[in-house]
């Protein structure tokens, strides 16, 4: 009986799946050729991690997120910059010398911790990581 009710409930909910899809926070990676990759955000973990685990091309992250290699460089879209705060000293030094083209929105994605507020965060991926 219970199982039957659950089945009916599940069937009734199915048309609303798209809503659930829309409710899960997302982040958007835009590659150099304009291809957009949308992945589910995961509040509490780094932007780099959702990129590497989901195989976003162009985020190398060789050191695994330890602020040591500068191969997870992204250009954060301007509208999101106020939400992020600036880089700390170590990241600042890596951005200063370690990336191919530093821009105002340059960040190392391993140093950006995702939050609910960052739903829809859009970043551009440089054509090369050093």
């Amino acid at each position, binding site marked *: 009986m219970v199982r039957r009710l659950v089945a009916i409930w599940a069937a009734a909910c199915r048309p609303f799946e798209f809503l659930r899809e829309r409710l899960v926070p997302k982040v958007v990676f835009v590659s150099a050729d304009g291809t957009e990759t949308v992945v589910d955000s995961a509040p509490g973990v780094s932007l780099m991690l959702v990129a590497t685990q989901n*195989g976003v091309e162009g985020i190398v992250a060789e050191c*695994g997120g330890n602020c*040591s290699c500068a191969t997870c460089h992204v250009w954060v879209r301007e509208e999101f910059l106020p939400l992020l705060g600036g880089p700390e000293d170590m990241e600042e030094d890596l951005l200063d*010398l370690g990336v191919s083209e530093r821009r105002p929105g340059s960040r190392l994605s391993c140093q950006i911790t995702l939050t609910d507020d960052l739903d829809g965060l859009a970043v551009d991926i440089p054509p090369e990581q050093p």
Partner: protein
Amino acid sequence: VTDGVLIVGASQAGVQLATSLRDLGYQEPISLVGAEPRPPYQRPPLSKALLLGRVDEASLVFRASSFYADRGIEVVCGERVREIALPGGGAVGGGVATTESGRSFSFAHLALTVGARPRRLAVPGADLDGVCYVRDVDDALRLRRALGQARDVVVIGGGYIGLEAASAARSLGRSVTVVEAAERLLARSVVPIVSDFYRAAHERRGVDVRLGVGVTGLTERGGRVAAVVLSDGTELPADLVLVGIGAAPRTELAEALGLGCDGGIVVDRSARTSDPKVVAAGDCTVGPHPVTGEGRVRLESVQNAVVQAKVAAAALAGRPAPGPEVPWFWSDQYDLKLQIAGLSAGYDDHVVRGDPDTERFSVLYYREGALLAVDAVNNAADYLAVRKALATGVAIPAAEARDAGRPLKSFLVPAARSA
């Protein structure tokens, strides 16, 4: 199927090799077989952030399973390869590898990315409860739990693993003693000034560092470790002992195949073993010095695993090998980040920039006037400048580098000086 590549060892090198093969357009099947019952993950945080509870197990996983599926990479976990027969060795068709559970995998080409195992302490009492190692995630989780209850922690070995674990234990408020047989810490990899700095830094934070003394045995109480006995007769009370005395390459499969081994599986600059059908990469290998191309060195680092795996993938895919990369390495202890670029072995001169007592300084290494490497503590600017100088062949003369007030970056961009 007798085509394709079998990669034994679901390690950093193994994952990179599989991924690079697909990036190079390799079309044949790829199987990646690992002994651990979990998807491939990164190891450096095991002795650092994982012990401190700053990251969890799930965040160590390299790739979601869909990543491998999308690229046609078969990942098999929890299967340890026991026996391998190479193609052409009398058998018809390709090679076959058999796991301990009896599964078999056929292949045309073989890659060994089997890593290393921790060297075991060989003294009486070494197998008591409370004696830990850190190599895989289970070890690290066990150590993390033990650190939660321990009072007196003794770390045997003053290398990177030992010092990182000591730093985690001390940060968690435990009483910590580090015992190192050599006369200084990190003796294999850094100059005495950096060794002395780490000794002072640990002592400032309350760690008891004992140098030049061996361990002769462990005593027990109720089946658990109770004390560490030193060669000078001292007994250090211990309810948790962490052993970090190095790692030994896993060469047994290679040896059984008759491949050349010499303190690691011997590979050439193309990451090929003594049998051209077999490549190897990562901690299990010894190969030519990555900069000079001479001799045989064993490098235990993420960077070496990654670059060797890329070279191995190119060899298997019949593509030109990627150019050499500047070796780099890092270690996190407390709020101290050590970053190393280049290889300092063989240096005949060094320059210290900044005062180690400030916990922000760097050491540049030279040989016959040429820059070899940098060890930088909380100084990413010097680390990156040297890394870039080594990659691009820019000189940073020792005499000028001595001026700590001059940013090393100015050597890279001469115009920046007059600007």
